[in-house]
């Protein structure tokens, strides 16, 4: 099964990458941009999708500082 894991900085934790992108977009003429956050994307094939949550908790994300969302693609 193909899966996609989206990993984001937790709400309330300073996200300097998101802030830098948020400042850069208006400099390029894109107005009206707010609340930009930059995270990571992990795509993987797994035989047993029930293991995905454990994979996220133990390795793919750091639950202290990141939220994750698992999407099953097929």
């Amino acid at each position, binding site marked *: 099964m193909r899966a996609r894991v989206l990993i984001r900085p937790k709400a309330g934790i300073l996200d*300097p990458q998101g802030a830098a992108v948020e400042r850069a977009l208006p400099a390029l003429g894109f107005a009206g941009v707010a609340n930009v956050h930059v995270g990571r994307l992990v795509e993987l094939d797994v035989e047993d999708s029930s293991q995905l949550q454990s994979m996220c908790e133990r*390795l793919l994300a750091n639950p*202290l500082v990141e939220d994750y969302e698992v999407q099953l693609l097929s």
Partner: protein
Amino acid sequence: MRFGVLQFPGSCDEVDALQAARRVGDAELIWHAERDLGGADAIVVPGGFSYGDYLRAGAIARFSPAMESVIEFARDGGLVLGICNGFQVLCEARLLPGALLPNTNLRFIFRQVDLDVVAPDTPFTRALGGLTRLSIPAKHSWGRYYADDSTLDELERRGQVVLRYTSGHNFNGSLRDIAGVSNEAGNVFGLMPHPEHAVDALTGGSTDGLTIFQSMRLAVEEGVHV
């Protein structure tokens, strides 16, 4: 007194850590694939970019065979010092509270920093001989210490905040100026600045870093290791 210094693919400060440790005792490198810690009395997890810092700094190194042994060693009361990437590895291994995040300014910074000694009586600071401020190099892009507010309050209440950046020296945005923390038992300590680079006045700006290694030796001799 014997130090074991871990070496991962991508470590770069293990030789300086080895040389610093050898100024106060015996020291040997331990390759990441080894489970045997070679009878070490204390472990140093050094700086660098273990496993290329892929995914998150320290995330993959934490699962190496050597680190599995270090986790057991720490749970048995053994002294473990994590420096820079080693601090990140110890946080990922949950041997230390909190996490390290990218510097607020997103830049790699290399500079000498002043550190206030908050806890002078730990196994890692007891040989400071009255020093209340350390001058040590720091060099990283991923050193902003983070823990949630209730954890930070607990750390302060229990005396686990060992070192803070002196006012004006917190270049990475660490919460509450925290530069180094210990675990609740006090036998595991991590810091972002590099004491192993400050053991010779010619190259380190001071010899203050040596006091950390001397403290560990003293702690082992006094029987902290169980």
